[in-house]
């Protein structure tokens, strides 16, 4: 039965066809929102060949899992995903549809919201049921302010950042329903293949230690030194935007509001001033360490440890001492 207070999450699967960690976080958050609104939580899973994944996801607390299984949904093409999901949600009139703020979610969310005539809040860092409605929190002005928003429409869509919800522990399985995917006959957008940057390093979002370099690093060579430090900890190297724009570091390294959002145990910011766009991508980190030659740099105000100095002189001895400590 359609219910105005039901919450739906749209699941995303990894290459190996498991629900992504963020999808499980959406389940945790969706459950809270559903409880707060007095509705049920459902998950929708678009894709191809997902029997095992659907069963896996059904252990995370939803009342039911809807599977939209079709070969045409194998890769994300908005021209196919949109009509399929629009068809699915028409007549269901949920209270909220929650989507991961990934490259798929950031593309799909607005399309689906406009198609459904629903209000949308992107890139949320908070969500709660309050005063009989859903309130969503997101950064605006590059992270210089946090806005709490509500939709004036019956249904609200939200795309959510990592670590807003927490994944529930798996328990009993819930019902899995196969729904026919209404794949359109005609599509305009064509996908022409993907190019992946090969990286042997630990993925930025999963690293427990992230060493990030900024404009003050001055060139690609400097990033080699940051990599050496990151490798000691089995961590990853990140960058603010200027090094990416200058080609010293790959786009995939960028941390911030238009890059990746990370929250490692230790974040080491080297020659970074601490712009709000950058802080938006790392301010939930455990301990923040800053090395900057400017004592007035804002990064020190948002760090737990700091050294004022030229990184070229500070970093080698820091790296060497860390190596000794780790070897003890």
């Amino acid at each position, binding site marked *: 039965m359609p219910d105005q207070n039901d919450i739906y999450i749209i699941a995303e699967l990894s290459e190996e066809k498991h629900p992504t960690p963020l999808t499980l976080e959406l389940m945790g958050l969706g459950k809270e929102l559903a409880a707060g609104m007095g509705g049920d939580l459902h998950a929708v899973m678009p894709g191809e060949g997902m029997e095992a994944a659907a069963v896996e996801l059904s252990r995370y607390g939803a009342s039911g899992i809807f599977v939209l299984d079709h070969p045409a949904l194998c890769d994300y093409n908005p*021209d196919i995903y949109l009509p399929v999901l629009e068809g699915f949600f028409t007549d269901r009139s949920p209270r909220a549809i929650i989507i991961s703020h990934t*490259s798929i979610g*950031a*593309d799909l*969310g*607005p*399309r689906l*919201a*406009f198609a459904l005539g*629903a*209000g*949308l809040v*992107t*890139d949320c860092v908070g969500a709660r049921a309050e005063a009989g409605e859903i309130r969503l929190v*997101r*950064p*605006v*002005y590059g*992270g210089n*302010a*946090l806005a*709490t*928003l509500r*939709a*004036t429409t019956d249904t609200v869509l939200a795309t959510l950042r990592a670590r807003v919800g927490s994944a529930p522990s798996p328990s009993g399985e819930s019902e899995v329903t196969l729904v026919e995917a209404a794949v359109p006959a005609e599509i*305009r*957008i*064509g*996908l*022409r*293949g*993907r*190019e992946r*940057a090969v*990286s042997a390093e630990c993925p930025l979002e999963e690293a427990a230690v992230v060493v990030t370099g900024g404009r003050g690093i001055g060139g690609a060579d400097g990033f080699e030194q940051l990599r050496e430090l990151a490798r000691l900890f089995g961590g990853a190297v990140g960058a603010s935007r200027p090094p990416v*724009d200058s080609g010293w570091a790959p786009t*995939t390294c960028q941390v911030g*509001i*238009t890059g990746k959002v990370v929250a490692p145990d*230790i974040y080491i910011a080297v020659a970074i001033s601490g712009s*709000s766009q950058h*802080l938006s991508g790392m*301010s939930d980190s455990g301990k923040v360490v800053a090395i900057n030659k400017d004592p007035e740099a804002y990064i*020190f*105000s*948002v*760090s*737990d*440890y*700091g*050294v004022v100095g030229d990184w070229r*002189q*500070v970093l080698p*001895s*820091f*790296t*060497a*001492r*860390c190596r000794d400590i*780790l070897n003890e």
Partner: protein
Amino acid sequence: MTLHIVVLAKQVPDPEGPPTSFEVDPEERRVTVRGIPPVVNPFDENALEAAIKLKETVGEVTITLLSAGNGISKAVILKAVAAGADASYLVDDPAFDPASLDSHASAAVLAAVIERIGDYDLILCGRQAADTNAGQVGLGLAHLLHIPALTVAQSVEVADGRAVVKKVMPDGYEKAEAPLPALITVSGEIGDLRYPSLAAIKAAKALPQTVLAASDLDVDVSGLSRVETVALEAPSRERSCALIEADGPEEAGRMLAERLREDRVI
């Protein structure tokens, strides 16, 4: 081939301004910006650069810059136009103050202007505005105009009546294409907007500019917004920082490592 490209250019407070210049007023639920100039949204500058690159490669291209807002600076627009546009449309009206329009209302205003501009082959806009950080208006506009949209492009090419982009992905890029007319949202990787010469800025003053008010457009923004702000606050991310004092930078590096060990951080 002739190609008419409309580039969307929103005026925003300079996002590179220091955090102290963005005053958060929780009572009024708005951000008051002090002491920093307005600029064209940086990703919109990238979109304009993408259009100018097409002009250099595709043949006959005309570029129309379109900005909607309240109190748009003529100097800011002039500098952008001078970089390589051929004409501009400014929709300047208190009713179109960015603070009072959500993504849906903004898209509706822009759609009304585009209908008025008439013929176009390609719309380029930024992947997100620096004030809203939303990344919605481009897709909303494409929806209202019933044209295909491709997002977060790091390169844009046009051939045989189709637009081809490389879309930024977390681990590389994906190639995607769509028939024209189409809308593309552009990312920074495409390259910075070139600087106009002084001569170009002078010449740009003579280029056609259409200035419109809300009453010139067939759109009523009241009741169009679907999202409203219930609270606004400054983020709390400050920490107390232990500064490592030492005799010289090498010693400071060593002491930092020691301190992290003492505190069981490493």
